């Protein structure tokens, strides 16, 4: 069967994928640059699949997610940076209660209300916690419109598999740009959720969903169970892409939009005879520490390219563990560096 190729904005592709992935409910609140998600779902969900609901705030939206996920629904919310900050308390609760759900952050410039233009300033918030307590989200970073769609299916699958919230960390540019996209033709099968609070019949045990464990021993039990789960996730769910790393002497590490620009930098560098390569982390949690550590054995210098002041570079340095110098190049405030600008910076490290 021939799949139809469509041209869509990243935000629209993500929203369409949510319907095709049989998302039962979407709760959201408009904010640039991701409002197309809410608009698309408000228009398309009724009559096709699922319920779209515009909440009165991001705080309400994330708590609707908490409730609906607890009832066993396949649920999603999306927002952009300031809105995601508002959701952090709820996200921590959801992680503690081990509820599967899909969160989407179309990252804009910050801190504060910031700017509506693209940014990667929410890396720390996404992979190091964001909310309180010892927890991790599974974080996926799409770098194309196709991946905006693909990671919705993958995100729901991983969320169900590990009973863990999954975050798609995108940015304003990937959300707004248009590329070709195809959708999978396979049947969507949602797993049974025997733990869900769907009403107690006389024939089954009571299900309780809570994040409150007053007794320290009980709380630690939960902490240890979560730690064990994150370990399993780290063993099984690391995703990355390598571009021309085989003979690379200079390695760029970048995710999302920065990875696309860095890919062009590699092409331009190779034209000039510079052996450059690119490692693109796709999962930001769990992070591909090992592969970067191995690449560090054969390159002379590593340059991380991020639309922030240097956040992911800390994880790259952890991975490299001092083997080679690691430097950062980034722009902020919604400014996107062109490939020439990055190449010029890379060349300052070439002896």
């Amino acid at each position, binding site marked *: 069967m021939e799949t139809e190729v469509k*041209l869509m904005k990243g935000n629209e592709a993500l929203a369409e994928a949510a319907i095709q992935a049989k998302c039962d409910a979407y709760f959201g609140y408009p904010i640039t640059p991701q409002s197309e998600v809410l608009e698309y779902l408000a228009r398309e969900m009724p009559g096709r699949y699922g319920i779209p609901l515009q909440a009165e705030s991001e705080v309400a939206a994330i708590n609707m997610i908490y409730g609906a996920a607890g009832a066993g629904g396949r649920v999603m919310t999306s927002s952009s940076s300031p809105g995601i900050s508002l959701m952090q308390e709820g996200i921590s609760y959801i992680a503690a209660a081990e509820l599967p759900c899909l969160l989407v952050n179309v990252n804009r410039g910050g801190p504060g209300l910031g700017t509506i233009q693209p940014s990667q300033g929410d890396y720390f918030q996404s992979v190091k916690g964001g909310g309180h307590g010892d927890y991790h989200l599974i974080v996926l970073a799409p770098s194309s419109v196709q991946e905006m769609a693909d990671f919705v299916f993958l995100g729901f699958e991983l969320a169900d598999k590990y009973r863990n919230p999954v975050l798609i960390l995108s940015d304003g540019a990937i959300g707004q740009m*248009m*590329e070709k996209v195809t959708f999978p033709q396979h049947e969507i099968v949602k797993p049974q959720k025997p733990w869900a609070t769907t009403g107690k019949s006389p024939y089954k045990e009571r299900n309780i969903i809570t994040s409150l464990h007053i007794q320290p021993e009980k709380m630690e039990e939960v902490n240890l169970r979560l730690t064990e789960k994150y370990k399993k996730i780290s063993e099984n769910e690391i995703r990355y892409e390598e571009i021309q790393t085989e003979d690379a002497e200079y390695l760029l590490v970048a995710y999302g939009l920065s990875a*696309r*620009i*860095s890919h062009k930098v590699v092409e331009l560098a190779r034209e000039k005879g510079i052996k450059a390569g690119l490692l693109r982390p796709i999962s930001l949690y769990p992070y591909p520490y090992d592969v970067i550590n191995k690449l560090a054995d054969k390159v002379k210098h590593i340059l991380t390219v991020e639309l922030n002041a240097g956040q992911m570079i800390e994880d790259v340095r952890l991975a490299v563990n001092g083997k080679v110098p690691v430097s950062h190049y980034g722009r902020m405030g919604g400014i996107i560096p062109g490939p*020439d600008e990055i190449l010029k910076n890379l060349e300052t490290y070439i002896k």
Partner: protein
Amino acid sequence: MIEEIIISGFGGQGVLSMGQTLSYGAALEGKEISWMPSYGPEMRGGAANCITIISDKKISSPIISSYDTAIILNQPSMDKFESKVKPGGLLIYDSTNILNKPTRTDIEIIAIPAADEANRLNFSKALNMVMLGGYLEKRPVVKIDSIIGALKKVLPERYHNLLPANRQALEAGQELVRKQLVVA
């Protein structure tokens, strides 16, 4: 083949839709595309631009530093992007809206009175299609029939009665450039 294009002008001149239509037309021919708009307050007027890339191969970056072609619809865009055209590249602009002409000598420059032509056709909104027709005459990266096919997809059905007028505008743009190329 890879063609990296910047289209730039005022919000409301059809800058973003020109890029979208071109992208869709290219996609209908099986090519790879990337369309990256400026977004935000420009939707309410002010400057608007989009980077449109058409290629036979997978496209690396949707954001680039210099362009094979600049399609320019107003003076601020000319001031901003004339210097960003690659040597040997093409700059095509709407002469109706430009006071200070481009001065580079290492690129090919084509001026067409697109807004005047669109007004002559009694379809002032189609100035973007006049420009697109002119561009495609010079660089036939996408067939006019594919552009019409793209418009069918991009335009809501209630505007499909305007398809013939759009074709006329595209062809008028082609004709304007054809005449210039013959003279030159």
